[in-house]
Protein backbone atom coordinates (compact mmCIF):
# COMPACT_ATOMS: atom_id res chain seq x y z
CA UNK A 1 0.00 0.00 0.00
CA UNK A 2 3.05 2.21 0.39
CA UNK A 3 3.18 3.64 -3.14
CA UNK A 4 -0.56 3.94 -3.49
CA UNK A 5 -2.93 6.51 -2.18
CA UNK A 6 -4.96 5.84 0.93
CA UNK A 7 -8.57 6.88 0.43
CA UNK A 8 -11.26 6.54 3.07
CA UNK A 9 -14.98 6.67 2.46
CA UNK A 10 -16.62 7.47 5.77
CA UNK A 11 -20.32 6.79 6.09
CA UNK A 12 -22.61 7.60 9.02
CA UNK A 13 -24.94 4.82 10.11
CA UNK A 14 -28.66 5.75 9.97
CA UNK A 15 -27.55 9.36 9.99
CA UNK A 16 -30.78 11.27 10.70
CA UNK A 17 -31.93 8.68 13.25
CA UNK A 18 -28.53 8.65 14.98
CA UNK A 19 -28.53 12.44 15.27
CA UNK A 20 -32.03 12.37 16.77
CA UNK A 21 -31.05 9.62 19.20
CA UNK A 22 -28.08 11.66 20.34
CA UNK A 23 -30.41 14.64 20.84
CA UNK A 24 -32.97 12.51 22.72
CA UNK A 25 -31.07 10.26 25.15
CA UNK A 26 -34.43 9.05 26.53
CA UNK A 27 -34.97 7.10 23.29
CA UNK A 28 -31.62 5.33 23.50
CA UNK A 29 -33.02 1.81 23.79
CA UNK A 30 -36.16 2.35 21.72
CA UNK A 31 -36.75 1.82 18.01
CA UNK A 32 -36.55 5.29 16.44
CA UNK A 33 -37.33 6.44 12.91
CA UNK A 34 -37.21 9.85 11.29
CA UNK A 35 -40.19 10.15 8.99
CA UNK A 36 -41.84 12.79 6.87
CA UNK A 37 -45.22 14.29 7.54
CA UNK A 38 -47.93 11.59 7.36
CA UNK A 39 -50.63 14.05 6.23
CA UNK A 40 -48.59 15.14 3.27
CA UNK A 41 -47.13 12.63 0.90
CA UNK A 42 -43.72 12.87 2.37
CA UNK A 43 -44.90 10.36 4.99
CA UNK A 44 -42.20 7.78 4.48
CA UNK A 45 -39.30 6.55 6.61
CA UNK A 46 -36.21 8.66 5.93
CA UNK A 47 -33.98 6.85 8.40
CA UNK A 48 -34.41 4.01 10.86
CA UNK A 49 -32.10 3.27 13.79
CA UNK A 50 -30.57 -0.22 14.07
CA UNK A 51 -33.14 -1.23 16.72
CA UNK A 52 -36.00 -0.26 14.41
CA UNK A 53 -34.30 -2.09 11.56
CA UNK A 54 -34.13 -5.24 13.71
CA UNK A 55 -37.95 -5.19 13.65
CA UNK A 56 -37.86 -5.20 9.87
CA UNK A 57 -38.44 -1.48 9.40
CA UNK A 58 -36.74 -0.30 6.22
CA UNK A 59 -35.95 3.11 4.73
CA UNK A 60 -38.46 4.57 2.26
CA UNK A 61 -41.43 2.46 3.37
CA UNK A 62 -44.68 4.06 4.55
CA UNK A 63 -45.11 4.93 8.21
CA UNK A 64 -48.17 2.68 8.40
CA UNK A 65 -46.21 -0.36 7.24
CA UNK A 66 -43.49 0.30 9.80
CA UNK A 67 -46.01 0.68 12.63
CA UNK A 68 -47.50 -2.68 11.68
CA UNK A 69 -44.08 -4.30 12.14
CA UNK A 70 -43.15 -2.36 15.23
CA UNK A 71 -46.09 -0.82 17.15
CA UNK A 72 -44.01 1.03 19.75
CA UNK A 73 -41.95 2.82 17.14
CA UNK A 74 -40.83 6.34 18.09
CA UNK A 75 -41.51 8.59 15.09
CA UNK A 76 -39.59 11.85 14.92
CA UNK A 77 -40.13 14.66 12.44
CA UNK A 78 -37.06 15.49 10.39
CA UNK A 79 -34.96 18.55 11.23
CA UNK A 80 -32.94 18.96 8.07
CA UNK A 81 -31.01 22.05 9.13
CA UNK A 82 -29.75 20.20 12.20
CA UNK A 83 -28.54 17.30 10.06
CA UNK A 84 -26.72 19.69 7.75
CA UNK A 85 -25.10 21.36 10.76
CA UNK A 86 -23.99 18.02 12.23
CA UNK A 87 -22.70 16.94 8.83
CA UNK A 88 -20.59 20.10 8.73
CA UNK A 89 -19.22 19.39 12.22
CA UNK A 90 -18.23 15.93 10.99
CA UNK A 91 -16.55 17.49 7.95
CA UNK A 92 -14.54 19.67 10.30
CA UNK A 93 -13.50 16.63 12.33
CA UNK A 94 -12.30 14.90 9.15
CA UNK A 95 -10.49 18.08 8.17
CA UNK A 96 -8.47 17.89 11.37
CA UNK A 97 -6.86 14.73 9.95
CA UNK A 98 -6.45 15.80 6.31
CA UNK A 99 -7.29 18.84 4.22
CA UNK A 100 -8.47 16.58 1.39
CA UNK A 101 -12.10 16.00 2.36
CA UNK A 102 -14.88 15.77 -0.21
CA UNK A 103 -18.49 15.48 0.98
CA UNK A 104 -20.34 13.09 -1.33
CA UNK A 105 -23.71 13.31 0.40
CA UNK A 106 -24.99 14.44 3.76
CA UNK A 107 -23.68 11.28 5.45
CA UNK A 108 -20.80 10.16 3.20
CA UNK A 109 -17.46 11.87 2.71
CA UNK A 110 -14.19 10.94 1.02
CA UNK A 111 -10.88 11.51 2.78
CA UNK A 112 -7.47 11.30 1.14
CA UNK A 113 -5.09 10.61 4.03
CA UNK A 114 -2.05 9.63 1.96
CA UNK A 115 -0.04 12.62 3.11
CA UNK A 116 -0.94 12.68 6.79
CA UNK A 117 -1.20 8.97 7.55
CA UNK A 118 2.34 8.74 8.94
CA UNK A 119 1.19 10.90 11.87
CA UNK A 120 -1.42 8.41 12.96
CA UNK A 121 -0.21 4.88 12.19
CA UNK A 122 -1.95 2.40 9.94
CA UNK A 123 -5.05 3.30 7.91
CA UNK A 124 -7.04 1.04 10.18
CA UNK A 125 -5.77 2.76 13.33
CA UNK A 126 -6.60 6.18 11.90
CA UNK A 127 -10.09 5.06 10.92
CA UNK A 128 -10.63 3.67 14.41
CA UNK A 129 -9.42 6.94 15.93
CA UNK A 130 -11.87 9.02 13.87
CA UNK A 131 -14.67 6.53 14.47
CA UNK A 132 -14.20 6.70 18.25
CA UNK A 133 -13.99 10.48 18.24
CA UNK A 134 -17.21 10.99 16.26
CA UNK A 135 -19.03 8.41 18.37
CA UNK A 136 -17.96 10.20 21.56
CA UNK A 137 -18.55 13.74 20.37
CA UNK A 138 -21.74 13.32 18.37
CA UNK A 139 -23.12 9.86 19.14
CA UNK A 140 -22.97 8.89 15.47
CA UNK A 141 -21.44 5.56 14.41
CA UNK A 142 -19.27 5.86 11.30
CA UNK A 143 -18.09 3.10 9.00
CA UNK A 144 -14.95 3.28 6.87
CA UNK A 145 -14.14 1.74 3.53
CA UNK A 146 -10.40 1.98 2.90
CA UNK A 147 -8.72 1.44 -0.47
CA UNK A 148 -6.33 2.95 -2.98
CA UNK A 149 -9.01 4.87 -4.86
CA UNK A 150 -12.50 6.29 -4.38
CA UNK A 151 -14.52 3.61 -6.12
CA UNK A 152 -12.88 0.81 -4.14
CA UNK A 153 -13.27 2.77 -0.90
CA UNK A 154 -16.96 3.25 -1.62
CA UNK A 155 -17.34 -0.41 -2.55
CA UNK A 156 -15.44 -1.50 0.57
CA UNK A 157 -17.74 0.57 2.73
CA UNK A 158 -21.04 -0.46 1.13
CA UNK A 159 -20.32 -4.17 0.87
CA UNK A 160 -18.04 -4.91 3.81
CA UNK A 161 -17.56 -2.14 6.40
CA UNK A 162 -21.32 -1.73 6.83
CA UNK A 163 -21.68 -5.41 7.57
CA UNK A 164 -18.69 -6.40 9.67
CA UNK A 165 -18.34 -5.88 13.42
CA UNK A 166 -15.67 -3.18 13.38
CA UNK A 167 -17.18 -0.91 10.71
CA UNK A 168 -13.76 -0.74 9.04
CA UNK A 169 -12.67 -2.67 5.97
CA UNK A 170 -9.62 -2.49 3.73
CA UNK A 171 -10.25 -3.60 0.16
CA UNK A 172 -7.02 -4.37 -1.58
CA UNK A 173 -6.98 -4.21 -5.34
CA UNK A 174 -4.95 -7.38 -5.86
CA UNK A 175 -7.44 -9.42 -3.88
CA UNK A 176 -10.53 -8.43 -5.88
CA UNK A 177 -10.95 -11.95 -7.31
CA UNK A 178 -11.60 -13.36 -3.86
CA UNK A 179 -13.63 -10.40 -2.54
CA UNK A 180 -15.57 -8.01 -4.77
CA UNK A 181 -15.68 -10.24 -7.83
CA UNK A 182 -17.49 -13.04 -5.99
CA UNK A 183 -20.44 -10.75 -5.17
CA UNK A 184 -23.63 -10.74 -7.24
CA UNK A 185 -23.83 -7.94 -9.76
CA UNK A 186 -26.69 -6.27 -7.88
CA UNK A 187 -24.18 -5.28 -5.17
CA UNK A 188 -22.16 -3.16 -7.55
CA UNK A 189 -22.08 0.63 -7.22
CA UNK A 190 -24.42 2.34 -9.75
CA UNK A 191 -26.22 -0.92 -10.51
CA UNK A 192 -29.88 -0.92 -9.51
CA UNK A 193 -32.59 -3.48 -10.06
CA UNK A 194 -33.07 -2.53 -13.70
CA UNK A 195 -29.39 -2.84 -14.63
CA UNK A 196 -29.15 -6.08 -12.63
CA UNK A 197 -31.84 -7.53 -14.87
CA UNK A 198 -30.05 -6.36 -17.99
CA UNK A 199 -26.67 -7.74 -16.91
CA UNK A 200 -28.28 -11.03 -15.89
CA UNK A 201 -29.88 -11.24 -19.30
CA UNK A 202 -26.41 -10.78 -20.81
CA UNK A 203 -25.31 -13.79 -18.81
CA UNK A 204 -23.49 -11.95 -16.05
CA UNK A 205 -24.34 -12.91 -12.48
CA UNK A 206 -21.30 -11.72 -10.53
CA UNK A 207 -19.24 -8.54 -10.56
CA UNK A 208 -16.26 -10.70 -11.55
CA UNK A 209 -17.97 -11.83 -14.74
CA UNK A 210 -18.53 -8.21 -15.74
CA UNK A 211 -14.94 -7.30 -14.83
CA UNK A 212 -13.52 -10.12 -16.92
CA UNK A 213 -15.59 -9.29 -20.00
CA UNK A 214 -13.28 -7.47 -22.42
CA UNK A 215 -14.34 -3.82 -22.66
CA UNK A 216 -14.89 -3.96 -26.42
CA UNK A 217 -17.13 -6.98 -26.02
CA UNK A 218 -19.10 -5.29 -23.24
CA UNK A 219 -19.57 -2.20 -25.42
CA UNK A 220 -20.94 -4.42 -28.19
CA UNK A 221 -23.32 -6.16 -25.80
CA UNK A 222 -24.59 -2.90 -24.38
CA UNK A 223 -24.92 -1.30 -27.79
CA UNK A 224 -27.19 -4.13 -28.80
CA UNK A 225 -29.41 -3.44 -25.79
CA UNK A 226 -29.29 0.34 -25.35
CA UNK A 227 -28.26 1.69 -28.74
CA UNK A 228 -24.98 3.17 -29.85
CA UNK A 229 -24.81 5.85 -27.18
CA UNK A 230 -24.08 3.34 -24.45
CA UNK A 231 -20.29 3.15 -24.89
CA UNK A 232 -19.60 5.54 -22.07
CA UNK A 233 -21.85 3.71 -19.66
CA UNK A 234 -20.27 0.42 -20.71
CA UNK A 235 -16.84 1.78 -19.87
CA UNK A 236 -18.15 3.23 -16.61
CA UNK A 237 -19.54 -0.11 -15.42
CA UNK A 238 -16.44 -1.93 -16.58
CA UNK A 239 -14.18 0.43 -14.67
CA UNK A 240 -16.30 0.16 -11.52
CA UNK A 241 -16.22 -3.64 -11.71
CA UNK A 242 -12.45 -3.59 -12.12
CA UNK A 243 -11.94 -1.00 -9.39
CA UNK A 244 -10.40 1.50 -11.80
CA UNK A 245 -10.88 5.12 -10.75
CA UNK A 246 -8.34 7.91 -11.02
CA UNK A 247 -10.60 10.71 -9.78
CA UNK A 248 -8.94 12.71 -7.03
CA UNK A 249 -10.55 13.59 -3.71
CA UNK A 250 -11.59 17.13 -4.60
CA UNK A 251 -12.37 19.47 -1.69
CA UNK A 252 -13.53 22.40 -3.85
CA UNK A 253 -15.87 20.23 -5.90
CA UNK A 254 -19.03 22.00 -4.76
CA UNK A 255 -17.75 25.41 -5.83
CA UNK A 256 -18.24 24.50 -9.48
CA UNK A 257 -20.95 26.59 -11.08
CA UNK A 258 -24.09 24.54 -11.73
CA UNK A 259 -25.25 23.91 -15.28
CA UNK A 260 -28.88 24.27 -14.31
CA UNK A 261 -30.90 25.46 -11.34
CA UNK A 262 -34.16 23.66 -10.75
CA UNK A 263 -36.86 23.12 -8.18
CA UNK A 264 -39.32 20.29 -8.12
CA UNK A 265 -42.02 19.34 -5.67
CA UNK A 266 -44.42 16.53 -4.96
CA UNK A 267 -47.84 18.02 -4.33
CA UNK A 268 -49.79 17.20 -1.16
CA UNK A 269 -52.77 16.23 -3.33
CA UNK A 270 -53.32 15.76 -7.05
CA UNK A 271 -53.86 19.00 -8.94
CA UNK A 272 -56.35 18.73 -11.78
CA UNK A 273 -57.02 22.35 -12.75
CA UNK A 274 -54.77 24.50 -14.87
CA UNK A 275 -55.16 27.42 -12.46
CA UNK A 276 -53.95 25.32 -9.55
CA UNK A 277 -50.91 24.02 -11.38
CA UNK A 278 -50.09 27.54 -12.49
CA UNK A 279 -49.90 28.68 -8.87
CA UNK A 280 -47.26 26.07 -7.99
CA UNK A 281 -45.49 26.73 -11.25
CA UNK A 282 -45.20 30.40 -10.35
CA UNK A 283 -43.94 29.59 -6.87
CA UNK A 284 -41.31 27.21 -8.19
CA UNK A 285 -40.29 29.69 -10.89
CA UNK A 286 -39.91 32.34 -8.20
CA UNK A 287 -37.57 30.07 -6.20
CA UNK A 288 -35.53 29.15 -9.26
CA UNK A 289 -35.16 32.77 -10.32
CA UNK A 290 -34.40 33.84 -6.78
CA UNK A 291 -31.52 31.37 -6.63
CA UNK A 292 -30.23 32.46 -10.02
CA UNK A 293 -30.38 36.11 -8.99
CA UNK A 294 -28.48 35.26 -5.82
CA UNK A 295 -25.72 33.65 -7.88
CA UNK A 296 -25.75 36.34 -10.56
CA UNK A 297 -26.92 34.09 -13.40
CA UNK A 298 -29.43 34.56 -16.16
CA UNK A 299 -30.84 31.47 -17.85
CA UNK A 300 -31.72 31.16 -21.51
CA UNK A 301 -33.55 27.82 -21.49
CA UNK A 302 -36.48 27.03 -19.26
CA UNK A 303 -37.78 23.52 -18.76
CA UNK A 304 -40.99 22.36 -17.13
CA UNK A 305 -41.84 18.86 -16.01
CA UNK A 306 -45.08 17.37 -14.72
CA UNK A 307 -45.71 13.86 -13.54
CA UNK A 308 -49.16 12.36 -13.73
CA UNK A 309 -50.93 11.24 -10.59
CA UNK A 310 -51.84 7.74 -11.70
CA UNK A 311 -49.05 5.30 -10.88
CA UNK A 312 -50.52 2.59 -13.08
CA UNK A 313 -50.86 4.71 -16.18
CA UNK A 314 -47.86 7.02 -16.05
CA UNK A 315 -48.48 10.30 -17.83
CA UNK A 316 -46.69 13.60 -17.83
CA UNK A 317 -44.08 15.46 -19.78
CA UNK A 318 -40.76 17.22 -19.50
CA UNK A 319 -40.15 19.84 -22.15
CA UNK A 320 -37.92 22.83 -22.58
CA UNK A 321 -37.84 25.98 -24.66
CA UNK A 322 -35.41 28.76 -25.37
CA UNK A 323 -36.57 32.21 -24.35
CA UNK A 324 -35.89 35.26 -26.49
CA UNK A 325 -33.20 36.54 -24.15
CA UNK A 326 -31.45 35.20 -21.08
CA UNK A 327 -33.22 36.36 -17.95
CA UNK A 328 -33.72 35.77 -14.25
CA UNK A 329 -36.85 37.90 -13.93
CA UNK A 330 -39.57 35.72 -12.43
CA UNK A 331 -42.42 36.96 -14.58
CA UNK A 332 -40.54 36.46 -17.83
CA UNK A 333 -39.52 32.91 -16.96
CA UNK A 334 -43.02 32.22 -15.70
CA UNK A 335 -44.55 33.35 -18.98
CA UNK A 336 -42.42 30.83 -20.86
CA UNK A 337 -43.13 28.12 -18.29
CA UNK A 338 -46.89 28.61 -18.59
CA UNK A 339 -46.60 28.42 -22.34
CA UNK A 340 -44.84 25.07 -22.03
CA UNK A 341 -47.44 23.84 -19.57
CA UNK A 342 -50.36 24.84 -21.76
CA UNK A 343 -48.80 23.28 -24.81
CA UNK A 344 -47.83 19.92 -23.32
CA UNK A 345 -50.10 19.19 -20.36
CA UNK A 346 -52.62 16.52 -21.28
CA UNK A 347 -55.21 17.49 -18.67
CA UNK A 348 -54.65 14.53 -16.37
CA UNK A 349 -54.19 15.20 -12.65
CA UNK A 350 -50.63 15.98 -11.66
CA UNK A 351 -48.68 14.98 -8.53
CA UNK A 352 -45.24 16.41 -9.21
CA UNK A 353 -44.18 19.68 -10.81
CA UNK A 354 -40.71 20.95 -11.59
CA UNK A 355 -39.13 24.00 -13.20
CA UNK A 356 -35.53 24.54 -14.12
CA UNK A 357 -33.41 27.14 -15.82
CA UNK A 358 -30.20 26.47 -17.76
CA UNK A 359 -27.69 27.86 -20.27
CA UNK A 360 -26.47 30.54 -17.97
CA UNK A 361 -24.76 33.81 -18.62
CA UNK A 362 -23.72 36.45 -16.11
CA UNK A 363 -26.42 38.95 -15.19
CA UNK A 364 -24.22 42.05 -15.03
CA UNK A 365 -24.76 42.61 -18.76
CA UNK A 366 -28.03 42.16 -20.53
CA UNK A 367 -29.75 43.00 -23.76
CA UNK A 368 -32.08 45.97 -23.59
CA UNK A 369 -35.51 44.83 -24.64
CA UNK A 370 -37.83 46.88 -26.77
CA UNK A 371 -40.80 44.94 -25.50
CA UNK A 372 -40.19 45.29 -21.80
CA UNK A 373 -39.63 48.92 -20.88
CA UNK A 374 -40.17 48.16 -17.19
CA UNK A 375 -37.29 45.76 -16.84
CA UNK A 376 -35.17 48.02 -14.62
CA UNK A 377 -38.13 48.53 -12.35
CA UNK A 378 -39.00 44.83 -12.07
CA UNK A 379 -35.39 43.99 -11.38
CA UNK A 380 -35.22 46.58 -8.61
CA UNK A 381 -38.42 45.14 -7.12
CA UNK A 382 -37.01 41.65 -7.18
CA UNK A 383 -33.76 42.74 -5.63
CA UNK A 384 -35.76 44.27 -2.80
CA UNK A 385 -37.97 41.21 -2.22
CA UNK A 386 -34.94 38.92 -2.37
CA UNK A 387 -33.20 40.99 0.27
CA UNK A 388 -36.27 40.89 2.52
CA UNK A 389 -36.56 37.13 2.12
CA UNK A 390 -32.86 36.68 2.77
CA UNK A 391 -33.24 38.48 6.05
CA UNK A 392 -36.59 37.23 7.34
CA UNK A 393 -37.23 33.96 5.52
CA UNK A 394 -39.00 33.03 2.29
CA UNK A 395 -42.51 33.23 3.74
CA UNK A 396 -42.24 36.86 4.88
CA UNK A 397 -43.37 38.22 1.54
CA UNK A 398 -45.52 36.19 -0.83
CA UNK A 399 -47.48 36.54 -4.03
CA UNK A 400 -51.21 36.74 -3.41
CA UNK A 401 -51.89 33.43 -5.22
CA UNK A 402 -49.72 31.69 -2.66
CA UNK A 403 -52.36 32.10 0.01
CA UNK A 404 -54.98 30.37 -2.11
CA UNK A 405 -55.71 26.72 -1.50
CA UNK A 406 -53.30 25.60 -4.22
CA UNK A 407 -50.36 27.62 -2.90
CA UNK A 408 -47.40 25.71 -1.47
CA UNK A 409 -44.88 28.49 -0.91
CA UNK A 410 -45.54 28.81 2.81
CA UNK A 411 -45.17 25.07 3.38
CA UNK A 412 -42.11 24.94 1.23
CA UNK A 413 -40.39 27.75 3.05
CA UNK A 414 -40.45 25.60 6.19
CA UNK A 415 -38.55 22.85 4.47
CA UNK A 416 -35.20 21.72 3.16
CA UNK A 417 -35.13 19.06 0.47
CA UNK A 418 -38.87 18.53 0.93
CA UNK A 419 -38.59 17.84 4.66
CA UNK A 420 -38.93 20.02 7.74
CA UNK A 421 -36.02 22.26 8.61
Amino acid at each position, binding site marked *: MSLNKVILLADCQSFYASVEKAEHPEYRNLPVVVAGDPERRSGIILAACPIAKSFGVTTAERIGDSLAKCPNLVIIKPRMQLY*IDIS*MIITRIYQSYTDLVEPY*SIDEQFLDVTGSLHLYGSPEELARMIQTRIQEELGVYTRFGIAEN*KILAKTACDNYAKKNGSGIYILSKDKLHETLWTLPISKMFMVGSRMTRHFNAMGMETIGQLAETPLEKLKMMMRRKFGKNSDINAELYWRIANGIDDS*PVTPGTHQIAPKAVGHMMTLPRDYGKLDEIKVVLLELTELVCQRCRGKGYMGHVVSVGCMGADYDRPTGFSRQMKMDDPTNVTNQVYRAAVELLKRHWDGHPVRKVGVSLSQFSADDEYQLSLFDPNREKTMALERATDAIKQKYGDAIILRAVSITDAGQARHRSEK*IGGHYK
Partner: protein
Amino acid sequence: MRKKLEGNGLWESSRMMLPEHKAAINEHENALRQRQRVELDEQEWEHVARSVAESLQQRHQITLRLFHPVEELTVIGIVDRVDQMKGRFMVDGEWFSIRDIEGALLD
Protein backbone atom coordinates in the same frame (compact mmCIF):
# COMPACT_ATOMS: atom_id res chain seq x y z
CA MET B 1 -21.72 12.38 -21.22
CA ARG B 2 -18.01 11.79 -21.72
CA LYS B 3 -17.48 13.78 -18.52
CA LYS B 4 -18.44 10.79 -16.37
CA LEU B 5 -15.14 9.17 -17.26
CA GLU B 6 -12.96 12.22 -16.68
CA GLY B 7 -11.64 13.99 -13.61
CA ASN B 8 -14.11 13.79 -10.76
CA GLY B 9 -17.00 13.12 -13.16
CA LEU B 10 -18.08 9.78 -11.75
CA TRP B 11 -18.73 11.33 -8.35
CA GLU B 12 -20.05 14.68 -9.54
CA SER B 13 -22.66 13.00 -11.70
CA SER B 14 -23.84 10.54 -9.07
CA ARG B 15 -24.00 12.53 -5.87
CA MET B 16 -27.11 13.77 -4.12
CA MET B 17 -26.58 17.07 -2.39
CA LEU B 18 -29.12 19.43 -0.86
CA PRO B 19 -28.55 22.97 -2.13
CA GLU B 20 -28.53 24.18 1.48
CA HIS B 21 -25.80 21.67 2.34
CA LYS B 22 -23.75 22.68 -0.68
CA ALA B 23 -24.05 26.34 0.33
CA ALA B 24 -22.87 25.50 3.86
CA ILE B 25 -19.85 23.61 2.49
CA ASN B 26 -18.87 26.46 0.20
CA GLU B 27 -19.25 29.01 2.96
CA HIS B 28 -17.04 26.90 5.22
CA GLU B 29 -14.41 26.48 2.50
CA ASN B 30 -14.35 30.20 1.82
CA ALA B 31 -13.94 30.86 5.53
CA LEU B 32 -11.00 28.44 5.60
CA ARG B 33 -9.38 30.39 2.83
CA GLN B 34 -9.54 33.63 4.84
CA ARG B 35 -6.03 34.56 5.89
CA GLN B 36 -4.99 35.95 9.24
CA ARG B 37 -2.76 39.00 9.55
CA VAL B 38 0.80 38.22 10.52
CA GLU B 39 2.07 40.21 13.51
CA LEU B 40 5.66 41.37 12.96
CA ASP B 41 7.95 41.76 15.94
CA GLU B 42 10.24 44.75 16.43
CA GLN B 43 13.25 43.18 14.75
CA GLU B 44 11.25 42.19 11.71
CA TRP B 45 9.79 45.68 11.49
CA GLU B 46 13.24 47.11 11.63
CA HIS B 47 14.30 44.85 8.76
CA VAL B 48 11.27 45.90 6.72
CA ALA B 49 11.88 49.58 7.44
CA ARG B 50 15.55 49.33 6.50
CA SER B 51 14.76 47.46 3.29
CA VAL B 52 12.07 49.92 2.24
CA ALA B 53 14.37 52.85 3.00
CA GLU B 54 17.19 51.28 0.99
CA SER B 55 14.89 50.65 -1.96
CA LEU B 56 13.68 54.25 -1.79
CA GLN B 57 17.12 55.82 -1.48
CA GLN B 58 19.30 53.49 -3.56
CA ARG B 59 16.64 52.64 -6.14
CA HIS B 60 16.98 48.91 -5.39
CA GLN B 61 14.30 46.46 -6.38
CA ILE B 62 12.38 45.07 -3.42
CA THR B 63 9.93 42.22 -2.95
CA LEU B 64 7.28 42.94 -0.33
CA ARG B 65 4.84 40.38 0.99
CA LEU B 66 1.51 42.03 1.80
CA PHE B 67 -1.58 40.88 3.62
CA HIS B 68 -4.62 40.02 1.52
CA PRO B 69 -7.81 38.40 2.93
CA VAL B 70 -7.82 35.48 0.47
CA GLU B 71 -4.74 35.66 -1.74
CA GLU B 72 -0.99 35.51 -1.52
CA LEU B 73 0.02 39.04 -2.47
CA THR B 74 3.54 40.18 -3.27
CA VAL B 75 4.61 43.52 -4.65
CA ILE B 76 7.84 43.65 -6.62
CA GLY B 77 9.42 46.93 -7.68
CA ILE B 78 11.17 50.05 -6.46
CA VAL B 79 9.63 52.10 -3.67
CA ASP B 80 8.96 55.56 -5.10
CA ARG B 81 7.50 57.35 -2.09
CA VAL B 82 6.69 56.72 1.54
CA ASP B 83 3.87 58.69 3.13
CA GLN B 84 4.21 58.28 6.90
CA MET B 85 1.25 60.55 7.65
CA LYS B 86 -1.21 58.41 5.75
CA GLY B 87 0.65 55.17 6.51
CA ARG B 88 1.22 54.26 2.87
CA PHE B 89 3.97 53.72 0.33
CA MET B 90 4.11 53.80 -3.44
CA VAL B 91 5.54 51.18 -5.80
CA ASP B 92 5.34 51.80 -9.54
CA GLY B 93 2.75 54.54 -9.10
CA GLU B 94 0.43 52.48 -6.89
CA TRP B 95 -0.22 53.13 -3.20
CA PHE B 96 -0.13 50.30 -0.64
CA SER B 97 -0.75 50.35 3.09
CA ILE B 98 2.33 50.10 5.32
CA ARG B 99 0.24 48.23 7.88
CA ASP B 100 -0.23 45.37 5.37
CA ILE B 101 3.47 44.56 5.06
CA GLU B 102 4.29 41.06 6.23
CA GLY B 103 7.84 40.74 4.99
CA ALA B 104 10.48 42.35 2.78
CA LEU B 105 13.32 41.05 0.66
CA LEU B 106 15.88 43.16 -1.20
CA ASP B 107 17.26 41.69 -4.40
